């Protein structure tokens, strides 16, 4: 009699895949990409494409040299490339961008073991490396002004943009961070397709809003300007480097908010979002440790003591 190959249960699987999740994130970045093209011109799209491409090349090469199976098909390198490009000023030379993607993909991600093993968000590290290495070039903002781009400080420093300009993104800054509207659209998409939960972004933005209001600053201005929206929606929701439980994600968001405000209000740096996320990435394992879920009906040592009393 014919015999069959057996397999362990469950015999059904959902259609979810890492690749599909990354594809959803890429789709969610499209509105912000479009906004950057509108306000900063075609060079913005070129830079995004260049970063995405070099990220894939670094990933491929790195896996090849490390004699590991290729992992570009999960599209995570593409996401990293796009998000790093969003953190760059449109005028940045492409060789600088290539260094950024190298720091992100090779140093932060692959050398720590590839997807799932990096302790910090690759795009954030890429940005910080560029920021510290090429501070001048990285802070050469342009203000979208018809056809001519004019150099200027970001609205976070000048404090003179209107809410409407900040919301749609008609202001100086990194190419993907200026349009709050486009980033929010992407964020709503990600929540709708259940790729992210809104816990970390809401906690992050809420904390910045509250602390700004408490310290007498304009809270709406604070949440609309700088890299907050980009950081909160796309960086503070990265699975690998943020806490795994919802409770942990709220703590993560609040921590990011506090550090961002401290840097913005008290330090000499123009922006604190990327540093705040990096610092919270580092404490993520500890947040995970303290926010473990309790099993339904599970009896723990403390419960036993109570039961004995």
């Amino acid at each position, binding site marked *: *009699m*014919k*015999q*069959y*190959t*057996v*397999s*362990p*249960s*469950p*015999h*059904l*699987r*959902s259609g*979810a*895949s*890492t690749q*599909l*999740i990354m594809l959803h994130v890429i789709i969610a970045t499209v509105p912000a990409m479009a906004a950057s093209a509108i306000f900063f011109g075609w060079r913005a799209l070129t830079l995004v494409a260049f970063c995405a491409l070099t990220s894939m090349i670094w990933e491929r090469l790195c896996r090849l040299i490390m004699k590991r199976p290729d*992992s570009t098909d*999960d599209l*995570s390198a593409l996401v990293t490339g796009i998000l790093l490009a969003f953190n760059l000023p449109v005028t940045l030379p492409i060789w600088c961008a290539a260094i950024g993607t190298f720091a992100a993909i090779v140093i932060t991600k692959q050398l720590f*073991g*590839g*997807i*799932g*093993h990096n302790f910090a968000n690759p795009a954030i590290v890429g940005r910080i490396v560029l920021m510290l290495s090429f501070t001048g070039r990285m802070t050469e903002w342009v203000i979208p002004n018809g056809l001519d781009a004019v150099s200027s400080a970001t609205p976070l420093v000048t404090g003179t943009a209107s809410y409407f300009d900040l919301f749609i993104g008609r202001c100086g800054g990194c190419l993907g961070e200026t349009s709050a509207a486009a980033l929010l659209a992407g964020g709503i998409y990600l929540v709708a397709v259940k790729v992210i939960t809104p816990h970390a972004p809401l906690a992050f933005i809420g904390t910045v809003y509250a602390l700004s209001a408490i310290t007498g600053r304009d809270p709406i201005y604070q949440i609309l300007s700088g890299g907050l929206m980009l950081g909160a929606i796309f960086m503070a929701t990265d*699975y*690998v480097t943020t806490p*795994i*439980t919802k409770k942990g994600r709220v703590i993560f968001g609040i921590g990011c908010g506090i550090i961002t405000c401290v840097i913005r209000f008290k330090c000499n740096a123009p922006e604190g979002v990327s540093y705040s996320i990096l610092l919270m990435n580092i404490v993520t394992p500890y947040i995970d440790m303290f926010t*473990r*879920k*309790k*099993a*339904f*009906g*599970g*009896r723990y040592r403390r419960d036993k003591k109570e039961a004995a009393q």
Partner: protein
Amino acid sequence: MRLNGIRLSHRKNTENCATVEAACPERVVISMSQHIGAPAEPTVKAGDEVRVGTVIGNADTNMTCPIHSSVSGRVTGLGSLLLPNGKTCKTVEIEADGLQTPDEGLSPPVITDKASLAAAVRASGCCGMGGAGFPTHVKLAFDEKKTHIDTLIINAAECEPYITSDHREMMENSDGMINGMKLIREVLGIERVCIGIEENKPAAIKLFRQKLSHEKGFEVLKLRSSYPQGAEKVIAYNATGRVIGEGRLTSDYGIIVLNASTVGMINSYAETGMPFVARRVTIDGDAVGKPCNIRAPIGTPVIDLLNAAETDTENMKRLIAGGPMMGISLYDPTLPLLKTTNAFLAFLHEAEEAKPSPCIRCGRCIEACPLGLMPREFEHAYDKQDRERLNRLKINLCMNCGSCTYVCPAKRPLAEKNQLAKGFAMSPR
């Protein structure tokens, strides 16, 4: 608090298929290990004449119940069989004479109190018919002086895709089920009887609401269609709000949970004295030409049932006993029907070979686990062979519902790892 659950497509293709009686098989192989607990020992030998309902296996231990012949005929031999769960058990092989003559000694039991009810349930050979197969009389063997059972839950959630055998029991044997509930309720002095039915079976909900509209103390509970709604701890919580603690039985919390078909079985034994010798199974899957519900003697070879349902056995590549989430895949289509099998699913394709990629910490397994466990952490701890951590994370509570594997985007075999980890954590050092 709402317990986690996942949404599955229901695929209840056979919900309107009235049960058909299977033709009497020529030969049955009856396993002496029909349910969890201790296996029985054969009490017959080759050459013995048996009738339908004759005891052919029994054991003195508490966690077992007698096994009866499901056909009339002659015992051809005692053998052994590798069950799909990996255990080897003794078997009794019987050649049927096709007459299905009942044993003359069968008579309805006299049930007056808890002890006689438990004894009758044990004598009927009844075990949980929903899949897990806990011997039913053990559920009734609580200490009356210490515990008072106030709630009887009839588990008719049937949350796994494809399976409709409990649904058909409700549609076809509603009066028998209600009589069974009344019997248990009266004997044990239970205040509340709660029939938990998933909302994807509106016909059954309507039928029971109608039939029980004038009865006091009966309640039909419409449950959300989410997997695993029919898990004992889950349905007990959703029906009563009581959290069944680690290592405790539902009876410690005043609850007895019985499967819908089980209560029907108890009633038919109480009325006719005919023990558990046949059951309804759903036959479905894409290899099955005519998906159906079929009532067959225990020990019937699966292949007979598949042929009755016009299955393409030539091209069939995968055969599962039970539902697609918790069922066991069978290595051989000649294996016999067990008391706990509620469905056979036959598919034209082999299980797709999932290539696991690294965990991306998305947390979906944690959001899916009905018992609030952390499958990802289990995997880590098991890979490091960290027994302490596995115990701290409560690996013992995992019931292998498979939700974590189902939702994992990295296609990691989490449920499989959980079982390995459970065995490892519970094994002596």
